[in-house]
């Protein structure tokens, strides 16, 4: 009794990074590289931290809600603790009093961790760039940022595009790349 290889291949998603070969005994053999399979799983299961400091957070929640539904991309499980999260969407203004809190939250997330700066405030201070005594002029003064999503606030489509760019970035990374430490980031390396 032969095994229909073509039929078995049909059940494998198109973007699966590797080849699935039926072993003949009901099991399968997967041929791929660690980089590919790890990046595939990481990029499709990014749990964001429940973190929003102002109006961008409203758009972020909208992105998570039924109409735009970022769980289609693996972002559905927003975690209330950084220990279980993979990424932060900095949704809103970061003020000087919030800065050490954000820094600590970032430090508490287990590696690998990713940051999306959402909206003008998180990117550069935005409307509070001039004449403000309290606003941090860009969250990248505190923690490294992977993707910037411009807008004030960005539409959910823009945030979805941003997180898809983040997925793209993760898929292009390799285990061989050394991740930068926070100390190196502070030194500007």
């Amino acid at each position, binding site marked *: 009794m032969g095994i229909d290889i073509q039929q078995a291949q049909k059940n494998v998603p198109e973007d699966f990074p590797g080849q699935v070969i039926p072993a003949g005994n009901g099991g399968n053999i997967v041929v791929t590289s660690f980089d590919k399979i790890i990046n595939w799983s990481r990029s499709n299961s990014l749990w964001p931290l429940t973190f929003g400091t102002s109006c961008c957070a409203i758009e972020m929640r909208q992105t998570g809600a039924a109409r735009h539904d970022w769980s289609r991309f693996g972002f559905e499980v927003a975690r209330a603790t950084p220990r279980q999260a993979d990424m932060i969407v900095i949704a809103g203004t970061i003020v000087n009093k919030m800065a050490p809190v954000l820094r600590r939250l970032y430090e508490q997330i287990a590696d690998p961790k990713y940051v999306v700066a959402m909206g003008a405030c998180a990117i550069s201070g935005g409307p509070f*760039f*001039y004449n403000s*005594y*309290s606003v941090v002029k860009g969250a990248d003064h505190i923690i490294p940022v992977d993707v910037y999503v411009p807008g004030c606030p960005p539409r959910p489509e823009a945030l979805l595009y941003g997180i898809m760019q983040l997925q793209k970035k993760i898929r292009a990374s390799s285990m061989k790349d050394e991740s930068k430490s926070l100390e190196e980031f502070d030194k500007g390396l």
Partner: protein
Amino acid sequence: MDSEALKKQIAGWEPTTEFVEEGSQYLNAIVSPPQLKALALKLREDEATHFNFMFSLTCVDYPEHMMMVYHLRSLNHKHEMVLKVKIDDRENPVVDTLCDIWRTAEYLEREVYDLFGVKFNNHPDLRRILLDDDWKGYPLRKDYVDPINIVSY
């Protein structure tokens, strides 16, 4: 009570009160710091005015003086007015607290103290509320400088 009746009533209590109505949806009554406490108490307690709700308390920094601004509303008479206090000493503004008349003033006065440096006599707990306790200066004053955090153009 409409604005005219309010004006008459307040002028009866404090004849030196200055009234402004142009450019505002409310009647504005401007008094000096020593007159504030007694007038505020009358506005709250008198049956005719009965302003039992303060819906805003803030401060404005003018070049020559500070101006305290109190927005008052009467929930049973359904009328509103603005009570203002002109404080001539802009550097060291002092005014009586109103938190024993309207409890909400306690936190709002702490905020004004925090950001404008207005001192409130007899306030039960006058500390900074938003900024750090060791913050120097009062950031919402027009002459506040902070070369590190403030980018100006």
